[in-house]
């Protein structure tokens, strides 16, 4: 029997899918709809001290792919603009009405011990399972000394985490901003402050597009625009990397990860879990398609686990971690060659022009006697880069074949062409 249940920083969840702290988790009405749809938990939209913030209109911009589907959203919305008391009352009600679902309270305050502690206690008293520290919003709040203005300074990350840990006896999730040079610095700071888990990534600081008629960045607020927080499918690779580093590096061992960043399908979630996340949080996919998308997240993840004989999330959590290494640990003697399956080739020539113009001139065109074009790989020129395989519009038409080089596993530090390694001998 496949069990999607999981434990994240000591919090039991019926499945690994939580709504991230964001517009979809702004109030009881939404969160209730999400729980009905099957989400395992919700991180309530970030709460601050009263009086509540005031938001602007409009708030979202989007990044589209060629077929007009949305691959990223940029938002300039601030934290919850509803009174604290209303939010706390609704959280309390939801905890009573949905005892098997997780509610985490997200909070944000300026660098003031009293502010953090009193907010954390108020939210804890509403009955949440844990507290998440929003140290990441890269727009608006940071101009008031909050959000990423806190998360970008390691000492502040450690300090705020410590304050909240001291104030409440609940699991503490420190939410990290990706807008830093090295994610390991704030992650280690969160650990030092006593965090049980880190949530990441918050949104990536961005300008999503420029309206070339109005010569204004979008979204436009009365003739002007500003940078905002970028999220959705397009940021997933950034989030995967940061998740992998925190999971595998020695200095952050023991810190659990609630992964966030473009998770749209069960497969995305499985990838984050394989790199070491205990659970995931989702916002953009829900904003694009509604809460119902969790149905296939649950279903697809369970099907994947059955197929691979994983009985629980724990069974494959971090399973890709050991294979995630520094470049210097890669085998310099590994060799691959591209192979083009002539039967499935549609003769579009994309592989040829990509290799010819931008890579290693390793694909040849010959006229077929019966008409048409035959594309073949010139083995001596192919460096096994994968470009042709990726750009080929036909699935599995170009594959990469391992070459038996009969050579040992040699890393760059050991490589004969590495002058630095020779000098060390």
């Amino acid at each position: 029997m496949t069990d999607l249940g999981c434990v994240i920083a000591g919090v039991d969840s019926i499945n690994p899918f939580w709504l991230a702290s964001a517009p979809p988790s702004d109030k009881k009405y939404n969160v209730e709809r999400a729980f009905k749809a099957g989400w395992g938990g919700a991180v309530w939209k970030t709460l601050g001290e009263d009086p509540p913030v005031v938001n602007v209109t409009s708030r979202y911009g989007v990044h589209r792919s060629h077929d007009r589907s949305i691959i990223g959203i940029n938002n300039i919305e601030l934290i919850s603009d509803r009174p604290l008391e209303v939010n706390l009352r609704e959280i309390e009600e939801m905890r009573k009405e949905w005892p098997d679902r997780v509610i985490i309270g997200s909070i944000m305050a300026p660098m003031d011990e009293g502010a953090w502690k009193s907010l954390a206690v108020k939210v804890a008293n509403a009955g949440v399972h844990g507290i998440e520290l929003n140290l990441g919003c890269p727009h608006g709040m940071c101009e008031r000394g909050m959000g990423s203005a806190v998360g970008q300074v390691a000492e502040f990350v450690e300090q705020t985490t410590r304050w909240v840990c001291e104030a409440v006896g609940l699991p503490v999730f420190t939410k990290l901003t990706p807008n830093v040079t090295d994610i390991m610095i704030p992650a280690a700071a969160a650990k030092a402050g006593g965090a049980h888990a880190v949530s990441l990534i918050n949104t990536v600081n961005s300008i999503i597009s420029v309206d070339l008629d109005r010569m204004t960045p979008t979204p436009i607020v009365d003739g002007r625009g500003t940078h905002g927080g970028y999220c959705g499918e397009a940021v997933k690779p950034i989030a995967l990397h940061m998740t992998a580093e925190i999971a595998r590096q020695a200095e952050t061992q023991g810190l659990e990860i609630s992964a966030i960043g473009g998770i749209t399908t069960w497969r995305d979630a499985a990838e984050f879990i394989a790199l070491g996340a205990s659970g995931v949080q989702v916002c953009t996919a829900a904003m694009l398609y509604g809460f119902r998308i969790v149905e296939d997240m649950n279903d697809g993840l369970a099907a994947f686990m059955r197929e691979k004989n994983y009985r629980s999330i724990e069974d494959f959590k971090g399973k890709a971690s050991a294979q995630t290494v520094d470049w210097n640990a890669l085998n310099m003697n590994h060799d691959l060659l591209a192979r083009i399956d002539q039967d499935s080739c549609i003769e579009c020539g994309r592989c040829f022009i990509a290799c010819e113009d931008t890579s290693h001139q390793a694909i040849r065109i010959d006229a077929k006697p019966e008409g048409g074009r035959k594309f073949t790989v010139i083995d001596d020129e192919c460096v096994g880069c994968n470009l042709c395989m990726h750009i080929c519009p036909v699935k599995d038409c170009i594959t990469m074949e391992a070459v038996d080089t009969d050579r040992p596993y040699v890393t760059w530090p050991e490589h004969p062409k590495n002058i630095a390694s020779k000098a060390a001998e």
Partner: protein
Amino acid sequence: MRHFKINTESKGLTPQEVAENFDDLHPRLEPAQAVVDAARCVYCYDAPCMNACPTRIDIPKFIHQIRSGNIGGSAKTILSQNIMGGTCARACPTEVLCEEVCVVHHTEGAPVKIGELQRYAVDHLMEAGGDHPFTRAPATGRILAVIGAGPAGLSFAHRAAMMGHEIVVFDAKPKAGGLNEYGLAAYKMADDFAQREVAFLLGIGGIRIEFGKSLGADLMLEELRSDFDGVFIGAGLTNSQSLGAEGEDLEGVRDALDFIEEIRQAKDKSKVSVGDNVIIIGGGNTAIDAAVQAKCLGARNVTLVYRRGPEAMSATGWEQDLATANGVAMRFWAAPKSFSGSGKVERISLSETELNNGKLSVTERSFELPADLVLKAIGQKLDQSAFGDLEIADGKIAVDENYRTSVSGVYAGGDCIASGEDLTVQAVEDGKQAAIACDADLRAAMKGAAK
């Protein structure tokens, strides 16, 4: 596949229904549809579609430009190779040209809608108005005569005007466009597109058209040669073929092209008389255009008679399907023997045909069909009387690889030469290439004279 309103009961079609039948065969793509279909293009290198197009339009490029939102640039990519890209987008048998070889067939089972995307882009540019997208090279002081304002002649004129020459086009008809105006089904060229395209093309400047003048009657080739610096003949094929069948001169037996011309020129198409039993003889796209339009006018029984099987028809499979989907009956392996009737045609007698050792022969077996209108779509031939000493080969004007005829300074292209398929797109290519060749010859002569 479009389904027209056809006459399934005896009461006929209302004028409103007839008018709707002659609306656009394919409604234009909406912007969202165009972007979605453009995204299906895999952007082939040295693309098969481009090589299948007689005018070699850079199809991956123009589709990419639609995708990027550069619709005007997309249209210019098309028009730079084919100034009649608008007509070709409507009338080309794309199913046997660009779309037939589209590689997306292999991955998705259906090609990118290249023709419809081309129309989307060109319509956008033409409707946006503004300056003509091409400019003329400095004036050469040379003036060229063009015989025929059809696709070949106008394509030649446009390209030659771009290269700095002055052009006078002569046409026997009262309107320009040739078969685009007179010879294509009305639902393919809705909203007076042929005339709108001519007006757009003339926007380059330097082109004057004189109507009601035909070679041999009003104009002599020798005079044109002396009055102009070069002559291009794009006169088409103007003589009808004859079946040689008894009763062919009866009233009601006419050329399919005349019938199509009558429909095209009729302001109110419901006024075109068609009859109840229409027989079309022939197997090309003109036969289909005539047959389907007869149905569109409300003819009850329309039968296309062809002397061979469906695979031998030059009409594409798509055109054949359009006909059968709209109630045109196909009668294969039959050839007209005679027509009869008192004063006007009432019956057609047909012989069954068969292949004997690969050769088509007429059998003893015959049958009759009622007929009140018979449309002959058996091809046109060159009116050889007009061309003086020009060398004719196999019934067409002989040209070399640079479209030069046997007479110096005289070039020819389109249906009156044997260059490829008798398609608008081929005629446009002929005119364009002939203009390039003529320009090169003129410049070589100018250079020689300057030395």
